[in-house]
């Protein structure tokens, strides 16, 4: 809890039910993909139409337990992602709810045309689960680090795009995807990241959630960049800034109201995502701002370049995805605010 320069109380949103303490070395860490694995098992128990397809990446995508528990509802496609997407479309058009599991670079990367035509245009009720997104993929290098997946799915009509922020939210997003009728893409990651939401934290497709209120700027983040954004806000609060932090796991449909409110209340927006700066959450937020309430925006993401092999933290340092980068971007956004905005003395 802190006061901004203007004397406004900035506070963690109690209705977000985040873990306490939120910061510190003791925070529990787990890979977001584990949440996906747990969710499909839970879904499999309650819904006989749930199926899982895997492209020779069953353990990596955490679907091994499902495959053993429900072998008849598990389809091993082999390393053939185009056929996997097509089979899923056929299954969905017969009433099944297939979850297509692979690395995001292969699905929706390699099979984009199949997702476009056989799934989205056909309105087939298929869920695409892309693991190993972002630089957190680490040592495998640039070929396996999906940094374009939001851009290529967000542009598809009928598609919902979800980028949950931790293991618990990934589980919720997966369960929500199963309930939603229509194509959904969910992205998650390989490496361990803080688990800072709880079972009580709200999740709804199409909704963003203010995790921490503030009035000097708002950081809108998704996926693995949400927790570093909270840390960035905390760091700036030591300097007296009150920074709102918004978790926006639903990139499409995006929560226009929460974004516009943040622009009106703070006058400066920062977006943060583990994705290319073009076509991702930053682009989606910019589209909302330019058509509703334009304010300065800074984009934290990978700067139109491919990654490389390395430890996750080294890669975040080198490619501009650390708390420090979010702090700098937020300072820059605040500096760009008009000096005398209307209505603010």
């Amino acid at each position, binding site marked *: 809890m802190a006061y901004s320069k203007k004397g406004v109380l900035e506070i963690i949103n109690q209705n977000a039910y985040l873990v306490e303490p939120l910061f510190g070395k003791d925070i529990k860490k787990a890979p977001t993909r584990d949440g996906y694995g747990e969710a499909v098992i839970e879904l499999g128990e309650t819904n006989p139409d749930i199926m899982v397809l895997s492209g020779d990446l069953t353990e990596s995508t955490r679907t091994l337990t499902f495959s053993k528990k429900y072998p008849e509802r598990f389809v091993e496609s*082999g390393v053939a992602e185009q*056929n996997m997407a097509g089979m899923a479309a056929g299954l969905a058009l*017969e009433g099944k709810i297939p979850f297509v599991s692979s690395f995001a670079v292969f699905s929706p990367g390699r099979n984009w045309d199949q997702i476009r*035509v056989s799934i989205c245009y056909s309105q087939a009720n298929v869920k695409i689960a892309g693991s190993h997104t972002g630089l957190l993929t680490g040592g495998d290098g640039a070929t396996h680090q999906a940094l374009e997946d939001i851009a290529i799915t967000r542009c598809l009509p009928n598609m919902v795009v979800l980028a949950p922020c931790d293991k618990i939210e990934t589980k919720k997003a997966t369960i929500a995807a199963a309930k939603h009728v229509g194509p959904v893409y969910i992205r998650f990651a390989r490496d361990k990241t803080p688990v800072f939401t709880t079972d009580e934290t709200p999740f709804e497709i199409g909704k963003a959630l203010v995790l921490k209120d503030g009035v000097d700027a708002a950081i809108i983040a998704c996926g693995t960049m949400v927790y570093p954004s909270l840390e960035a806000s905390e760091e700036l609060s030591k300097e007296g800034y009150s920074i709102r932090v918004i978790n926006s796991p639903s990139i499409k449909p995006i929560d226009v109201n929460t974004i516009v409110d943040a622009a009106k209340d703070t006058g400066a927006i920062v977006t943060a995502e583990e994705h290319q700066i073009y076509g991702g959450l930053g682009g989606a937020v910019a589209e909302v701002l330019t058509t509703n309430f334009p304010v300065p925006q800074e984009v934290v993401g990978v700067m139109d370049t491919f990654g490389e092999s390395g430890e996750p933290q080294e890669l975040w340092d080198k490619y501009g995805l650390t708390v420090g980068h979010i702090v700098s971007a937020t300072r820059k956004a605040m500096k760009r605010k008009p000096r005398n905005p209307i209505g603010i003395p």
Partner: protein
Amino acid sequence: MLAISDLEVLELEAMANTMRQDIIKMLVSVGSGHAGGPLGMAEVFAVLYFHILKKDPKNPFWPERDRLILSNGHICAVRYAAMARAGYFPVEELLTYRKIDSRLQGHPHNRSLPGLENTGGPLGQGLSQAVGRCIAGRLDGKKYRVYCVMSDGEHDEGQTWEALMWAGNHKLRNLTTLMDRNNIQIDGHTEDIFPLEPLRNKYEAIKWHVIEVDGHNVREIIAACEEAQHIYEKPTAIICHTVPGKGVSYMENNYEWHGKAPTKEQGEVALAELRAEGDRIQKEILGAAK
């Protein structure tokens, strides 16, 4: 296998001829579309819609129906003609093909017209969907069969082989494909552009049962479909050797007619040829009925 009478064969041939005339009228009306493939597959579609498929045109989502996936969506004019003639929608609607606000899209869209099982256009996508439907049918203990019409040209696509190998490995016996082996693709003859032979050997190597037929011989097509129903350990591929542009002399075997429509005058010539053939079949029908 049920014996089929000469009269039934002639009636299917007459239906194929009617569908060819429909196709020419559709293409001339809109001034674009594909001619070669649809004309070449008229007998196959006549046999499927009027002899083989379990279907209910008034209830296109009937759960027990056989599923017909059209993978090479660009030949949809022949499917539309067959569906209209089978009673899925009024024959007059055929002339909306490729026009604004039509249910008959240039490449078929499953959500536009009830009775279309799939969206097809980008080649190689249909068989995977057919495989998915086979898996669902097997899981649910359903009796329906899945038929997938494919082109030879789309065997250039890697996805086709992904799906073929998956189906062979998993012994999808409720799956039957009918390949339009007309030897042409947009840029020329298949064996010049991207040679596919030996197709039979390739299919057999990946655990398919293969039947080759004259794709204009109604009896052979029926016999092959019925044989496929009695192959219990493999999916069946029926390679239908066809003449692209069949029934219109200036289009036959000319790959330049793969993707274009006849002008009004060319259409008149085509229709005159087709009507003459139609009259010949009607005379034979009268003879057979006696």
